[in-house]
């Protein structure tokens, strides 16, 4: 059952890499939240009930509802265009994605452990790779943030692999989620505020060498 969920999670990555509209990204992120909920529910069998309830709450409430809603709000408020504007053609992205998944599968055989752990490993590493790829090939800051959210989902899957033995790890992953959301949220709320009122002192060049 868990393997099935993980494989469908892998399929959503192919969707997100081919998606054109930002709203599609949000819908896929919400779907991933639901899938993570299911994966956590089936794999964390030996965990304390209260802790489990907390984790499930986090995946559903934060990942599926709050974050997509908030990002959608930012999109509307800042009048961001609806296309993702990838720098690389979708076809090439797909080819890269497929080859990277195959490569990760081969890499996982080098570990010499059971297929159960390996699937967690493969899916999470593929997710992290997808997130980094989205960050590298999209132009907007908001898409960078979505790429980061994809990376976080990958980390969550990996934390499930050790969740039964070390429940602290899963909680730390949630801490990371909350931390990153608060930071990015803070930046976006601040940016709209008092920045553009005062002029810069010496240089108006952008930061680079």
């Amino acid at each position, binding site marked *: 059952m868990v393997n099935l969920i993980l494989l469908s999670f892998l399929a959503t990555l192919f969707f997100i890499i081919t998606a054109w509209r930002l709203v599609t990204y949000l819908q896929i992120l919400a779907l991933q939240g639901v899938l993570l909920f299911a994966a956590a529910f089936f794999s964390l069998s030996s965990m304390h009930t209260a802790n489990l309830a907390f984790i499930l709450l986090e995946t559903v409430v934060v990942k599926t509802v709050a974050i997509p809603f908030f990002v959608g709000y930012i999109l509307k408020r800042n009048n961001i265009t609806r296309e993702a504007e990838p720098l690389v053609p979708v076809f090439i992205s797909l080819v890269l994605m497929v080859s990277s998944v195959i490569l990760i599968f081969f890499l996982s055989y080098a570990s010499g452990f059971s297929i159960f752990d390996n699937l967690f490993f493969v899916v999470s590493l593929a997710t992290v790779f997808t997130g980094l790829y989205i960050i590298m090939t999209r132009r907007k800051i908001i898409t960078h943030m979505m790429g980061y959210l994809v990376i976080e989902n990958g980390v969550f899957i990996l934390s499930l692999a050790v969740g039964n033995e070390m429940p602290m790890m899963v909680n730390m992953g949630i801490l990371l989620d909350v931390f990153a959301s608060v930071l*990015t949220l803070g930046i976006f709320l*601040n940016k709209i505020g008092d920045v553009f009122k005062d002029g810069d002192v*010496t240089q108006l060049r*952008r*930061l680079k060498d």
Partner: protein
Amino acid sequence: MYSIFFITSFLIGGALLFNRNNILKVFLLLSFVILQGSFALFVIRNTGSSYGYLTADHLAVIFIVVLFIISSLSIYHSAAYLKWQQKNEREHNFYYAAMVILVAALNCAYCANHIAITWMFVEITTIAASFLIYYRRTELTLEATWKYIFVCTISITFVFIGILFLGIAMKHAGLTDMSYTSLMANAYLLNPFWTKMAFIFIFTGFTAKAALFPMYTAGIDAKDKAPSPAGAIFASGLMNVGFCGIYRTYGIIRLTDSAAWANSVLLFSATISIFLASVYIMKVANYKRMLAYSSIEHMGLVMLGLAMGGAGVFAAIFHLLVHSFIKPALFYQTGIAYRVFGSKMIEETGGYFRQSVAGSLVFILGYFCVTAVPPSGLFISEFMIFREMYLGGYLWLMAIIMMLLTVIIWALGRNIFRLVFTAPPNVKFESLERPSPFESLSQLALILFVMFMGVFPPEPILDYIRAAAAIVSSR
């Protein structure tokens, strides 16, 4: 004492945030300095004592004392900086509160004896540091803050992925205790594949703080855009915390069969870092960015020493200790020069000798110290690192690195001597401020200490460095 220190520091940070009274602010900052001083004294007298997840081993004690000195000076220099910026009260409060919390979190991160606790406190340093970078609230600082937060969050995520891989390795070995001592004792049980994956991810993640090759970009913008007193902490305390994370993880993998592989990872990252530093330092347009790139070069040398092992580890920690004194001195003086000229661009400044003799002395002596010219303590450590490389048979690498260092020495010298002696055509020196020589006194003291470390390094300090180096070079 540990809990008293950390709880009181966070309380002081919170109080600074909401305080409206100037005298109370001075009192709070003073009490923080005293608190930190007594904490430093406490860990010196009780080296090796632990409280829960915190243990002040020799490495932590060295870094805590360094941070105490640098942060006290930074708080002192901040007063002049903030007066010049003339922001409103609320932004000053944010600045001081962020600095206090950053320093407290750094102290915790040095002491942490559990890899997850280190990770958590490094997370807190990211938040506090981003407030410091955003202090001036311009578009450029916003850009720098955004980049810093983004790169640091990704690298913190990488560290977490590494910790999870370590968790998988421990699960197969039947271990559950993630403290460094337990991991080092049971390192031989860990599966090599997952340990390698863990090391590469943890290393990549901590390079953002340590200013090394894959993730170095965040630190450059941060040191450039943050106020220079904060930049001084970034160039010493924050780099040390990155080193701490890498060093302790390296201490685990060194005891497994993957030790040679880990060394080659360190060597690769170090060489690329020094190469990048030498490339960028040639075309850099701004003094603070120049100093930031010089930090990358020094961290690369430290990693070379760590990879060489043996006496190289001692040299690495010695190098880091001395670098943590000389780089803040230059950052403080750059802040004063920025205030005098109203610019930190290399093109628009020069002739600093007319404005401030003491400040020029800091720049010139600081230049000689930072490029490891003999009276400087860095000379000893660089000499030891190169000797270890020679003995280890890395002659080609040594030759390449020496050439790159020559480029860096030349580029630094060209820019610093230009700042001190060459007056640009359209600067009216009569209208510029003449900073008081007392402001440069602290930097001269730091430089004097660096030279002292080069000539007569005190035996107690060396004992501490030896004990800290023993963490990864014993057995």
